[in-house]
């Protein structure tokens, strides 16, 4: 997009509240992407006549956690409304949602961007029910749609941000931040691919410097963060091109086609949406008493952006490292616990061992940090052993993979495998001497001025020690002895 335009983007996010039972009936919430169809359905969520909804307390509590974490004003009385439309994914012919008086309004969150922290407004947070899942099959005369109602009536939270996002980076970070907050709050696992979290940006452009709001386009069908970024870039370019050519952006909903890499018109609508919202007569107003709200607020965990701040300001990490550590609550808590257990290593070194070797191990073996057979204390012990020089970094890495394989304590493993680092100056000195004596040609080269031969000696000596030599001491000992040989030669 040319620099003449500025992007104006707001997000509409739908997050499944991962409760045990559905929002208005006690059917179990199951994974609708690969569960047997229509096995978690009852007369209520199948929309049979005469059935009455009864609201799930946990769905309200989960929603309140998110609303409070996003600094919203909670409406002590909120109203459910019927959103009427005909589509086979909604057996009742309407969706129970919230409209005029939602659960919460006027919040905000802070997100990191390249140009510093950005405050993004939250317009509203409300509860609604999810719809059934449709599968479209066949071609031409054989075309048909199948309906699975397992997902019908699953609690869904809608979060609407203000259009405060002006770069692709800010949109991505805002989506990440919302996902991360909901994972911290243990209300949503953040899976876009399975549709547990759906991110729909509203996108428009305007002349840079203008404050006007222009016609916006909503994008659906984004099932990864990568798609979100690609769709944004595509749509911003499309709108700029259109406006440059003297055209006007039409208000519409477009679907992202990941294969084609472009946005496509979804369904044509002959008439404008007319949902005829009205208060749901089968549900009394939702009243949340202040005491309950305060209890939920008091129980909120420290949130990612606060943790990040603390890691930078109190612990002394770089903003980058802190960002890596707080992305997942389990990782941040692992770091906090290990930080309390280290004696010799410092916070920076600990952070590096988590974001380096530990992450590498997790990625390689597909582990999550919670599923590791060792906790933060043994990990801290391992990093301490490196800090104190008991073992070297490469031994520590191999100990780490063994810890992951069998859960044994690092001290035990070091002892059993004889990995203890050779740090005695006498032993190191002897090791250096042996390698030097065996390789007179290379000594001659060094004496003749080839300094880089030192690295070759270092490699040979390390090999001879089976990787156990303290690298700093070894390099030092080699240099001292080789320099002595050089000095002797010059003197003679």
């Amino acid at each position: 997009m040319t620099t003449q335009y500025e992007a104006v983007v707001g997000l509409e996010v739908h997050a499944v509240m991962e409760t045990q039972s559905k929002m208005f009936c006690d059917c179990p919430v199951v994974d609708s992407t690969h569960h047997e169809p229509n096995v978690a359905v009852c007369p209520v969520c199948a929309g049979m006549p005469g059935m009455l909804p009864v609201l799930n307390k946990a769905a309200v509590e989960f929603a309140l956690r998110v609303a409070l974490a996003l600094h919203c004003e909670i409406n002590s009385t909120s109203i459910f409304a019927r959103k009427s439309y005909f589509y086979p994914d909604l057996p009742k012919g309407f969706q129970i949602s919230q409209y005029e008086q939602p659960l919460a309004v006027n919040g905000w969150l802070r997100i990191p961007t390249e140009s510093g922290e950005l405050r993004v407004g939250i317009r509203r947070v409300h509860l609604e029910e999810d719809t059934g899942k449709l599968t479209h099959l066949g071609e031409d005369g054989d075309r048909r749609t199948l309906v699975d109602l397992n997902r019908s009536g699953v609690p869904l939270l809608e979060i609407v941000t203000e259009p405060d996002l002006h770069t692709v980076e800010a949109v991505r970070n805002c989506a990440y931040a919302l996902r991360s907050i909901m994972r911290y709050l243990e209300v949503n696992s953040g899976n876009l691919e399975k549709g547990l979290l759906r991110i729909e940006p509203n996108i428009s452009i305007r002349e840079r410097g203008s404050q006007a709001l222009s016609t916006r386009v909503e994008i659906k069908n984004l099932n990864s963060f990568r798609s979100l970024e690609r769709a944004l870039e595509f749509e911003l370019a499309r709108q700029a091109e259109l406006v440059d050519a003297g055209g006007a952006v039409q208000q519409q909903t477009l679907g992202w086609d990941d294969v084609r890499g472009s946005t496509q018109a979804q369904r044509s609508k002959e008439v404008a949406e007319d949902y005829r919202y009205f208060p749901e007569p089968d549900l009394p107003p939702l009243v949340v008493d202040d005491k309950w709200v305060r209890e939920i607020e008091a129980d909120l965990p420290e949130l990612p952006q606060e943790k990040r701040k603390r890691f930078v300001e109190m612990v002394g990490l770089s903003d980058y490292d802190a960002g890596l550590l707080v992305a997942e609550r389990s990782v941040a808590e692992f770091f906090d616990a290990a930080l309390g257990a280290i004696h010799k290593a410092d916070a920076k070194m600990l952070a590096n061992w988590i974001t380096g070797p530990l992450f590498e191990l997790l990625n390689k073996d597909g582990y999550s940090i919670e599923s590791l057979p060792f906790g933060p204390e043994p990990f801290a012990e391992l990093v301490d052993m490196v800090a104190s020089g008991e073992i070297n970094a490469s031994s520590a890495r191999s100990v780490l993979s063994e810890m992951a394989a069998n859960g044994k304590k690092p001290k035990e493993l070091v002892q059993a495998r004889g990995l203890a680092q050779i740090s005695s100056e006498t032993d190191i000195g002897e090791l250096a001497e042996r390698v030097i004596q065996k390789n007179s040609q290379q000594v001659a080269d060094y004496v003749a001025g080839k300094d880089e031969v030192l690295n070759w000696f270092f490699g040979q000596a390390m090999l001879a020690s089976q990787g156990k030599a303290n690298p700093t001491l070894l390099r030092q000992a080699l240099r001292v002895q080789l320099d002595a040989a050089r000095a002797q030669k010059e003197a003679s």
Partner: protein
Amino acid sequence: MALSKKDVDHIAHLARLHLSDAEKARFRKQLSDILAHVDALQSLDTTDVPAMSGAIFEGSRLREDIAGDAMPREDLLRNAPDRENNQFRVPPVLD
């Protein structure tokens, strides 16, 4: 308040009803009469009366989040006019 023919078309479309011209004329009259009847309420002064969202004034009774049993799938699908792969089968809808 009298409804126009266009209003009736719109309402019929939203309800996915196909109406004949005779039906449209009849329903236009009936719906207009209903609205006129309800219009009588507009003569009341409701300045100090808060908007009412329902007839139940107590707050929601909340249910504990405990999953129960779903209904047998066969019972559910017995309501389906047509089925395939244990799902309701409906005419194709564009997505």
